């Protein structure tokens, strides 16, 4: 799920940036530092949409660095248990398959794949129904439901299932060609 929230961060700026463009520099550094990171609490920071407030800088003794408390608005993505996501399959093996929904990695283990889909090893390992009409392989797009998340300080990993109504392949590259 996506959220638009305000976060705060203390930015350290090197003294060489002090000058007329200090503010711009600060914002670009903030974007570089923060976008794409993941915090366990808020999820992945997808994009910074604006800077609300930059506080008074504090010069650090000895180094000359200045610390600015910066408040910024950003879009975060945080997967939740029970959430339905669309994801791209990145790897298929006997134990199940891995998929990615943006920055989030999701693992779907083989017993959470419908019973009528069988694993086919070979050049392109895939899960296929007995009549061959549905196939999950690398690059397939699947809709899945998250049934568990493991949230570390800097990482979120999910477990998904496609064993439910309306879940499964939404377009597979083989059929599209």
């Amino acid at each position, binding site marked *: 799920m996506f959220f638009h929230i305000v976060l705060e961060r203390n930015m350290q700026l090197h003294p060489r940036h002090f000058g007329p463009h200090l503010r711009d520099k600060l914002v670009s550094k903030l974007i570089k530092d923060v976008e794409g990171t993941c915090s366990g609490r808020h999820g992945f920071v997808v994009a910074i949409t604006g800077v609300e407030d930059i506080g008074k800088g504090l010069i650090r003794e000895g180094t000359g660095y200045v610390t600015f408390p910066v408040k910024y608005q950003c879009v975060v993505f945080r997967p939740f248990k029970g959430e339905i996501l669309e994801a791209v399959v990145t*790897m298929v*093996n*006997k*134990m*199940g398959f*891995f998929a990615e929904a943006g920055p989030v*990695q999701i*693992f779907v*283990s*083989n*017993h*959470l794949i419908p*019973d009528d889909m*069988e694993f086919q*090893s070979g050049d392109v*390992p895939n899960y296929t129904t007995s009549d061959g009409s549905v196939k999950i392989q690398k690059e397939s797009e699947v809709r899945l439901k998250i*049934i*568990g998340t*493991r949230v570390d300080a800097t990482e979120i*990993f999910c*477990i998904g*299932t496609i*064993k439910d109504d309306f879940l499964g392949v939404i377009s597979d590259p083989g059929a599209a060609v």
Partner: protein
Amino acid sequence: MNSIEPFNRLVRLAARAFYDDVSMKGDNQPKTSRGDNRGMAVVVLDALTRRQWVREEDLAKALKLHSKQLRRILRFFEEEKLVTRDHRKESAKNAKAHNAAAAAANDGQPVAKEGEEKVKMHTHSYCCLDYAQICDVVRYRIHRMKKKLKDELDSRNTIQHYICPSCNKRYSAFDALQLVSYTDEYFHCETCNGELVAESDKLASEEMGDGDDNVRKRRREKLKDMQQRIEEQLKPLVAQLDRVKNLPAPEFGSLQTWERANIGAFAIGDPAAADSSRNSQGQYGTPMPFIGETKVEVVIDGVKEEGAESGKNGSELKVLPPWMIKDGMNLTKEQRGEKIEPQKLEISEAKDDKKQDSKDDQSVQEEYIKAYYEALRKKQEEEEAKRRMQQEGKISVPDSQTERQVGKKYKRDDDDEGIEWEEHQPTGNATETYKLADLNAEAQESGDEEDDNEWEEG
């Protein structure tokens, strides 16, 4: 001992259901030569249902088992939470004390081993079934069995677990990312690089080798079948659990309290006292203070007591508690507890009243008093104290000895009603025996505050 019987049945059923094929092998020696000792566990549990706290050596002797063997089994049951054990260092004297208690508890079946006088300080182990816990354990076990199957059937054990067969390290699906190997399509153990097996597969895949196409389908069938069989085979056990659910579990307390309870009763030398004390604290006594209130005290020597009391049944008007009075009942005012206040206030008056009421059966009463005074004195005094409190309300002056005498007469058939005013009894039997006076004082005070309201409702 009616109330303990369903629990014993539960234990026996559970033993046969779950511990049937537990074999107590020694750690290193395969005991094939001696024949397998499966079923031993059941025998031990059965034996324990017929005992309360028992010294393990005695039990071993009774079962003709080697004490080491027995200890191994008991340790197993302790881990399974079916049995509580207690170990203590004791001399022959203490051991005898236990024997005495055991004898008292078994109503004279001596478990005694008098040959052990010479024992110095030895560590003795005692064991006893923990009925309350057994109920929980069995219920939990069944719940887990069913849940496991159900989860597997619906694949609801959402988070798959993997286990390394070689080093037994466990992983969950959350670790999947670290476990994938790019050389083949299995997960590999981080430490020993062995291939991981999905854990829940183990249940069903044992016989059919894993990994093949139809495995999952067949597994489902097998699971369903297993589920059915569980339902079927555990039906008696489940039924018994249901039956037992609302009964208070027999509780023997810790070894010390049990011993004290039984010995205390034994020392008085009055079987009735022994039994009643056990009733009140040992068997039904639960830690919850208010359970005791509603208990029906009949079981052990109900016949005796009831028989005697029925003799003077008509003479004595019992005050029924409000909750026992129903519309259709044909009661006198006194039975309803609606006696007129002033009557109560005057001790002498009350006395006279009583005498008139019961004049006819005076002699019977005297007999009764003599016979039962010893056994029931404590209870009576306490109840009487409370009763007075209830009836007189706050007006009452601290009870004097004479008042108590009066009370004794009309309150004794309370037992018939199955009510015990026991909330205020201390748990230890010893205190009860030795500190009669103190006990009374306490009971009076507390009875005053609490019971007042109850009686005013009616």
